[in-house]
């Protein structure tokens, strides 16, 4: 039993799948277009810049999957840095990776803007950059190579759909926001709100406070919320941790599973368990296992094949229907 640590992506289970058909739509990019030179991935120095501490399931799984895949492919020279959630540090990290002579960069950006200095240096050295899970606002195939990840705005919309059918199209909803200023927060919020506005005008979003993506904060905010707004029907948490914090709060307030419908994003093991236990209504997955897809894309690119300028992976939904069976695949 406890304590359980992050499970490996059991076999191919929970592996990322590219969204079809739209996933790889749009312009493509080849080695010539990019203007890089071919090199052997195995012997190359590869840099991976992680944005946040490997201290939540998503980051742990993400870093792990990159490292595992590199090992699998026999890439011996993988350099990993971690920006500890400080953006300035991530810029410096990547610059120092470049200084150490990496030939391929995989970056999990903490923020979408502000990559100018890195992009310049990389471009000067023609180092291909693959960004995972978050975008970089720049030109694909020139500033950077390509983006692999989920569409957070889309995740927000799908969360909204689940909330709407959970509440039968009407009721009061509270949002537990992620960390302020964070792109993920912004997009998951906008996606949710836009969708609700367009499809269920009778749902009012009566409350939105930040839980900073952390469980304790989620719990505290929810405690305040249900105490002063007892009439709330649903809670949209922008990540699983806050949702689970909310669950603890509801338990503490003597609520029953399902009294308040909770929808969240990520798809961590505990959250899927939460669905099975009836506390969560649905969870929109955001799949962190970028390793295989990233290196596959890189290899294709180095082989001279055309690769799409953005690879959107198809995230699944977890709900009472599939929760129990897919527990093994959740991260």
């Amino acid at each position, binding site marked *: 039993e406890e304590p359980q640590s992050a499970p490996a992506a059991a076999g191919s289970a929970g592996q990322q799948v590219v969204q079809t058909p739209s996933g790889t739509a749009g312009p493509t990019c080849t080695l010539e277009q990019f203007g890089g030179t071919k090199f052997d991935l195995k012997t190359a120095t590869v840099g991976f810049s992680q944005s946040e501490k490997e201290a939540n399931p998503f980051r742990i799984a993400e870093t792990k999957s990159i490292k595992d895949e590199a090992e699998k492919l026999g890439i011996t020279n993988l350099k990993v840095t971690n920006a500890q959630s400080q953006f300035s540090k991530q810029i410096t990290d990547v610059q120092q990776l470049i200084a150490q002579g990496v030939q391929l960069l995989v970056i999990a950006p903490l923020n979408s803007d502000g990559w100018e*200095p890195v992009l310049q240096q990389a471009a000067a050295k023609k180092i291909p950059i693959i960004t995972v899970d978050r975008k970089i606002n720049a030109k694909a195939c020139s500033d950077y190579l390509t983006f692999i990840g989920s569409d957070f705005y889309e995740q927000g919309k799908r969360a909204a759909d689940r909330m709407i059918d959970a509440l039968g199209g009407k009721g009061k909803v509270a949002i537990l926001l992620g*960390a302020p*200023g964070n792109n993920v927060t912004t997009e998951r919020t906008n996606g949710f709100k836009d969708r609700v506005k367009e499809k269920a005008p009778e749902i009012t979003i009566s409350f939105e406070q930040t839980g900073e993506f952390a469980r304790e904060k989620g719990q505290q905010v929810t405690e305040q919320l249900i105490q002063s707004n007892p009439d709330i029907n649903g809670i949209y948490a922008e990540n699983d941790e806050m949702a689970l914090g909310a669950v603890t709060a509801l338990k503490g307030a003597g609520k029953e599973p399902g009294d308040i419908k909770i929808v969240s994003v990520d798809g961590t093991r505990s959250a899927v368990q939460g669905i099975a236990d009836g506390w969560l209504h649905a969870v929109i997955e955001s799949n962190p296992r970028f390793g295989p897809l990233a290196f596959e894309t890189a290899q294709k690119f180095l082989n001279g094949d055309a690769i799409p300028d953005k690879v959107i992976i198809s995230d699944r939904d977890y709900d009472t229907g599939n929760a129990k069976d897919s527990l093994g695949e959740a991260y």
Partner: protein
Amino acid sequence: MNREQLSRTLQQHGAVMVLGTLVIVGSLAFDSFATPANAASVVVSSSFLAIIAIGMTFVIISGGIDLSVGSLFVLGGVLAAYGSQYGMLVALLLPLAVCGVVGLLQGLVIARTGMAPFIVTLAGLLGVRGLMLAISDEGATTYLVKDRAFAALGQGEILGLSYPVHITAALALAAMVLLQRTGFGQNVYAIGGNEQAAALMGVPVARTKVYVYVMSGLLAGLAGALNAARLSSGVTILGIGLELDAIAAVVIGGTLLTGGAGGITGSVAGVLLLGVIQSLINQVGNLTSAFQQVVSGLFLALVVVAQRLLSKAQRLT
């Protein structure tokens, strides 16, 4: 030179020595450490913290502390990026003006009401970040730097080092002169060393304090603006905990938090120390984030102890 002088020099330059040792060890341990490129990345990324640390040095020598610099840094960046759509001048003046005013307010409150700088600037830390979130609708909008000339200010290079480095160097020199060779500098030391006595010796205590906080505010804003130019966007998630880095750098540099003693050289060395420590950790390549923190914590402790023992050469009676 006698014992006091020796030990004073040690206290001020203990950090420099530790830095030197660390660099040597580093370049022996990793061959990709002492490369120009890596050195450049350390120096460039340190320059922004250095600018803030210069202001912090004045504040701390005067016996105060400024926790608002982290928030002013990010606010300055956002304002600069926002202002850049109206051209270079606005991009520079807007952040300086606003951050200067914040510094002025904090200085006035501290000097006039005698409230603890720690708490006043803690309020500043909160309030300013709030302000930043307010003008970037809760941090959702990131203004991009439109003005090329302004962007160049953060990205252009001379001798392989980008402008911010040169600006920092210039500021550091100016600060040294200001601190050691002007009446204002003397007043800063005096009120830090013994405020009551300074007042009785005819030092304009209140005014000096106000100046000090204005300066700190201005420099934090400037650092933010330059950083925005470098990133060519007003990133809203910057500067959290930056004040602690700045304070650590200054104190490692041999400046006493109790005020009255210290200098710019040490602070700059302190900043570089922090940068080098980070760089060394990156050289190792595959430490988990948790271990990285343990290591930098140990490093920090090691450095302050070393610095302290060096300066203990002086026995106070």
